[in-house]
């Protein structure tokens, strides 16, 4: 591929007409050439100048399509690309990614990932009545259900907000004092008096939410189920990213998806709708929640979490947080009027939450947020064996024949619109697209591990006899033949040493950073057994030091396997 400039942000906000720099147009043209299509017309639809992303409408001989430059870093975008492919395979109404001529579902160019999908003709659901909102909620429930079980491709940076609730609540609480100090320092501004008078109430709400999150909520037990169990949350869902199209509601712009509790999208959608209405309407809220539940039932604990997430002063925070930037301009009469409106809406919000049965404990007077809880983060412990096995498997394998969709909860009153059967997919997948990860990962990763030439390493101590000698020959012999073959589906009877040998050099190099992704504990054990070590000793070696032993064993195996291939 010829040299292309790296795509950089080119401005702050989009002007009246979307524009991109000339070089980006050129990269777009270059990207389009890598697809099996004749492009007759190109039209820039929307841009993210501050992030470096854009969407084009392209008329092709294969029909109207969309070309999108994802603004995030490639490993981060890979997470959402994998997610999009996954939900399509599960039958979600999300535009399917069209493979390029290399069979890849994305094209890397200019330091970004690009995707091509069919252009689906969509119309926004009605915003004026509850039916439109219900359509949106039902579609959201379907989407969430389809995302369950998603495992990102290797090399993807995982996007997760599942563990971020304490930090988020804390941040909102903590910033209330910033707002207060700004209002004090800028007391001569029109809105400062009202802002000062309002802050106490919202500060207390945020603290109460944080306190309940830690001590009186099912949060920790819910997130303990893990990211894949919960699946993905869109994070930017509303009337523009969920629209009606062939077969029902379509969901687009998946770039921001992250593991999360599914109620986050629903909560945001309801908060936003109520905020826009200027009144928290229980009938609407019930209708929206019921419609969601018809597609994806909410268990009682999760419902409780949703109520708690409502209790956070989200709307106040969202409207006020910009005050730290240029308060001498921001806190004008207009802002004062906005504050007035927020305060008026607030009473109806709490009346509505009461009707849903919200129960909050007041924090004790001496309550201070617990720093350990606030700094909760994704667990660093290695993936469990079954996860590793999943990662080993070919994540883009053709979807299994579709299971019948879950029946919607009989208790619910919401019935989605009937779907015309012929209009389900505008572009059914003709063949399974390949995602040649092994070729692209290396360019994408920021860490480029070097492989030492001297690799005849002794394995670790746990085994009673040396394990380096016996397997070295078959492994490295087999290894020399494999070069850049795509990942093979794992055969059930395949010996583990063979499995290792079948991996490409690049995969092995990538695997050094986390070999447990290449080799599960079970496989590590089996490999040791294949080397002639007794199963008991192997078992002990692996279980001895948590995952460390297996990690290191697999590392030394990788080192052996690497001998004779892929040394660069």
């Amino acid at each position, binding site marked *: 591929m010829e040299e292309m400039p790296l795509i950089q*942000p080119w401005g702050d906000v989009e002007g009246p007409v979307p524009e991109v720099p000339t070089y980006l147009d050129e990269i777009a043209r270059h990207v389009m050439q890598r697809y099996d299509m004749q492009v007759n017309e190109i039209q820039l639809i929307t841009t993210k100048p*501050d992030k470096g992303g854009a969407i084009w409408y392209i008329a092709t001989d294969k029909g109207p399509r969309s070309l999108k430059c994802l603004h995030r870093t490639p490993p981060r975008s890979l997470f959402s690309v994998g997610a999009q492919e996954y939900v399509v395979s599960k039958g979600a109404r999300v535009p399917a990614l069209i493979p390029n001529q290399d069979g890849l579902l994305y094209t890397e160019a200019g330091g970004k990932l690009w995707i091509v999908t069919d252009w689906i003709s969509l119309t926004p659901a009605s915003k004026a009545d509850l039916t439109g909102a219900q359509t949106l909620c039902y579609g959201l429930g379907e989407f969430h259900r389809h995302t369950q079980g998603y495992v990102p491709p290797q090399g993807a940076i995982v996007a997760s907000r599942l563990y971020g609730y304490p930090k988020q609540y804390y941040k909102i609480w*903590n*910033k209330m004092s*910033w707002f207060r*100090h*700004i209002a004090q*320092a*800028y007391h001569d501004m029109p809105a400062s008096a009202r802002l000062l008078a309002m802050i106490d109430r919202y500060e207390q709400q945020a603290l109460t939410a944080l306190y309940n999150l830690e001590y009186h909520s099912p949060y920790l037990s819910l997130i303990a189920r893990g990211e894949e169990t919960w699946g993905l949350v869109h994070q930017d869902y509303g009337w523009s990213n969920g629209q009606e199209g062939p077969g029902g509601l379509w969901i687009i712009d998946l770039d921001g998806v992250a593991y999360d509790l599914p109620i986050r999208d629903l909560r945001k959608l309801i908060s936003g709708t109520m905020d826009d209405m200027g009144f928290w309407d229980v009938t609407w809220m019930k209708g929206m929640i019921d419609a969601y539940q018809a597609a994806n039932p909410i268990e009682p604990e999760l419902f409780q979490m949703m109520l708690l997430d409502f209790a956070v002063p989200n709307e106040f925070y969202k409207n006020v*947080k910009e005050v*730290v*930037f*240029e*308060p*001498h301009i921001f806190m004008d009469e207009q802002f004062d009027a906005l504050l007035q409106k927020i305060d008026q809406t607030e009473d109806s919000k709490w009346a509505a939450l009461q009707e849903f049965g919200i129960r909050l404990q007041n924090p004790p007077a001496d309550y201070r947020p617990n720093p*350990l809880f606030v*700094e*909760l*983060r994704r667990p660093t*412990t290695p993936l469990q064996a079954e996860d590793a096995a999943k990662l080993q498997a070919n994540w883009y394998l053709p979807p299994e024949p579709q299971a019948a969709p879950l029946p919607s909860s009989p208790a619910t009153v919401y019935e989605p619109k009937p779907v015309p059967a012929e209009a389900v997919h505008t572009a059914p997948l003709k063949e399974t697209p390949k995602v040649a990860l092994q070729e692209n990962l290396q360019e994408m990763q*920021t*860490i*480029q*591990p*070097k492989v*030492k030439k001297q*690799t005849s*390493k*002794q394995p*670790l*101590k*746990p085994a009673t006899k040396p394990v380096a000698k016996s397997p070295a020959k078959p492994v490295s012999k087999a290894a020399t033949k494999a070069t850049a073959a795509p990942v093979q589906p794992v055969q059930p009877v395949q010996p583990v040493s063979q499995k290792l040998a079948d991996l490409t050099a690049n995969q092995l190099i990538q695997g*050094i*950073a*986390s*070999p447990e992704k290449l080799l599960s504990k079970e496989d590590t054990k089996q490999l040791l057994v294949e080397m002639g070590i007794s199963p008991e000793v192997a078992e002990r070696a692996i279980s001895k*030091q*948590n995952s*460390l*032993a297996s*990690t*290191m064993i697999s*590392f*030394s195996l990788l*080192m052996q396997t690497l001998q004779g291939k892929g040394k660069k």
Partner: protein
Amino acid sequence: MKVLLIVTEKLPVPPVRGGAIQTYIAGIAPQLARHHDLTILGRTDPLLPDHEVADGITFDRVPGGHFELYRQGVVSYLDGKQFDLIHIFNRPLMVSAVRQAAPNARLILSMHNDMFLPNKITAEEAKLAIADAERIVTVSDYVGRTISNLYPEAAPKLKTIYSGVDLNRYLLSTEAQRVRQELRDLHGLNGKKVILFVGRLSPKKGADILLRSLPQLADKHPDAALVMVGSRWYSDDNISDYVAYVRALAARSPIPVVTTGFVDAAEVHKWFWAGDVFVCPSQWQEPLARVHYEAMAAELPIVTTRRGGNPEVIDGQNGIVIDNPEDPASFAAAISDLLHNATKRRDFGKHGRVLAERNYGWERVIREILEVWSG
């Protein structure tokens, strides 16, 4: 003895890209190498060869950046090598791997911050690290306490060795007086009483609290000025909410606020020379900020907070400890006290220098580390 120091995976040694631990190791290594056969194992860097011998120290470098990757590199590096003693810096997660790879070496672990907290290491792994290490050296009593509170079995292995400062570089010489005047001229600080803040702009470091104390100071000290060193005020694009907040507060400050932007570590001592009162408004339980040693070495009286290890280096004659760090009025009172009283400022500064010379030079750090190594 054949001794190996294992640096963290983040930054290389020598500290061509900065880093507190890296600076620390660079400060002590040349002297240590006079007593022992010293190898430093760190991460690779485009600016540095993977292997070199310099100043009698062997440097070996394996790929870093990512901890797991680095740990595996360390393990494979150790294979077939013999060291009498291996000193691991700030990575308890490294200890058991090294123990397995070098079963006969003595292991020492140095702790520079809170890597033993439960969100950084599981109890199982922490206990293994404690069991495998012969001694655990900490940069403050506070860091040691955070370990022994969680793992009482660590207590007998703990030893505080305070960090050090280059005493010569910070010495308030005639040249230093000239530089002080130059900097003050350059930034319109002539005739001002300069309050000095050195550090990142982050909520943990508390610049916002210091700024909020200024209105209360201004009445009594209209001739005061605040200098904020090393903080990134105007980064190219997205400034964080916190930086915006601090800037908004500074814009309404009744006394001048001078910001220097990023200052190279090799130049930062000059700003210590230019100050009159040094303030460390840390809000978090920090291990023990290096700036305290630097302020003492430059004869500056200190106002710091009762957070983490910071109060351990204040004896009442070199600075003031704020018991309630969230309260701007406490800062205003302490700073005001020092600004009022030139004699007190001078006495505190002089005493700080005496303490620094007695306790916080690199010589003392080296001596104590050698003692730990000798068993």
